[in-house]
């Protein structure tokens, strides 16, 4: 299926990716050729086959609800672009 520039802009928005205007057509073409490859899947009838999510068909391992990690906020926040009083700063969201 061929994606139009409008489709590409919509996908980029959903993915929260800024794409330069002059790259929109190129990405739309690239993605369309990938989707063409992916459409080969439709040649095969898979009705009734149980989807496989984990290659070993493993299920989620559970553990007791006990605290196992220590608080390392200061260490982790050293990596952040902008922090104040232990909080991550971002542009104002609510006016």
């Amino acid at each position, binding site marked *: 299926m061929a994606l139009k520039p409008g489709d*590409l802009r919509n*996908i*980029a*928005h*959903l*993915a*929260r*990716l*800024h*794409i*330069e205007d002059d790259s929109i057509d190129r*990405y739309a073409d*690239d*993605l369309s*050729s*990938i*989707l*063409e*490859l*992916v*459409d*080969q*899947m*439709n040649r*095969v009838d*898979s009705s009734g*086959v*149980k*989807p*496989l*999510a*984990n*290659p*070993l068909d*493993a299920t*989620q*391992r559970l*553990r007791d609800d006990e605290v196992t990690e220590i608080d*390392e906020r200061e*260490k*982790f926040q*050293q*990596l*952040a*672009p*902008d922090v104040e009083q232990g909080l*991550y700063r*971002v*542009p*104002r*969201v609510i006016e």
Partner: protein
Amino acid sequence: MARSITEIRDGLTQGKYSSVEITQDYLDRIEQHNPALNCFISVTPEIALQQAGEADRAIADGNIQALTGVPLAHKDLFCTDGVRTSCGSRILDNFVAPYDATVIENFKKAGAVMLGKTNMDEFAMGSSNENSYYGNVANPWDLNRVPGGSSGGSAAVIAAGLAPGSTGTDTGGSIRQPAALCGVTGIKPTYGRVSRYGMVAFASSLDQAGPFAQSAEDCALLLQTMAGFDRRDSTSAEESVPDFSADLNHPIEGLKIGLPKEYFGDGLDSQLAATIEAAITELRKLGAEFCDISLPNANLSIPVYYVIAMAECSSNLSRFDGVRFGHRCDNPRDLEDLYKRSRGEGFGDEVKRRIMIGTYALSAGYYDAYYLKAQQLRRMIKDDYQKAFTEVDLILGPTTPEVAFAIGAKTDDPVSMYLQDIYTISLNLAGLPGISLPVGFVDSMPVGMQLIGNYFDEARLLNTAHCYQQVSDWHLQRPQAFA
């Protein structure tokens, strides 16, 4: 200098040289050759020499662990406490990991020395190492060709003798394909065999770590340290780990090996096919028995893989938001602008393509047609293998359809690049282990052969590869420029 890990271990314990001496040798070689190859994103000489000094003191005290004093290089995708972990991406260019991956922790406990962090395709997305923010890696056999990817740096350091062992990760072939293209040995274990904790996630149901080295014997030593259950990885397998070195010399007489007809059809270079045939003849002389098998859904592997891998990557990479760590754009207008421009500036082309395909495949109205369909076909691919393994012990085929291609040859056509992984990708979908080992040359470039095993049967892969390497010397050949 092409010392094996086994040789280095013996040399260190027998006092032929110290870890500091051998580590300095490798650091000197890296300084000399890395500018031409670009194998490393970060070289860590201070850490290496400090760890080597500690190793020498441990050896003097008789406190020798599995890899005490052995220098290794790690793919820049494993978190290393206090050392930049870039994953080949601008978005993590300033990311100094605050903890060690389990794999790194295991190597520290085993006494290994870290030389540095190797170059890779950004977020392990690529088959040529051309998608790195830090530039492409050259193939040591021909500097104008690619080393393969995504673990291109880790494969090239072995070929060029810049480290005797290294780590990689394999989501669709990222250990086996560069191992083949660089003429080294690399193994992707069973999904869940090695902990994913502290690996930057690409596609969580496919990602698996493994080692590169000159030989299967050395890979066995490295895998021994890497493997094992880890409660910090929710998909870690609760399976006991055998002694991978113990059965290396077990005779392979009577071993049943299947040859999938789908792996020897159109698309395989004819000279490369002849090289694989010659290796089959050698294995036959060792007593292995061959039969033809079929993996009828093998041709679906690439489309299925690209839906699943891209869907999982779009979800995994949503964590890179410019808020808690990594690149943030200048002067964001609002929160949405901060997300969009930080990610737009931080990610390269291929990563953006994959995030967008994954986002599309998971979006409302398309989930059943893409993701669910791919998961159904994934089970059919796995079932083909399970059926085959009722008849054979191992499966054999080429690792790649052709030898290393020229830098730039496939960069304009993402789909032609994806086809490079045609023989490796189905193992990740099924979760099976595979090893690539060198079996000859075409056009003066190395050819890799792939052996595929049943779940948790890495020991048999290593055993078979080792037996072949006892009667061949392809794995000992080195590019002249780096001899």
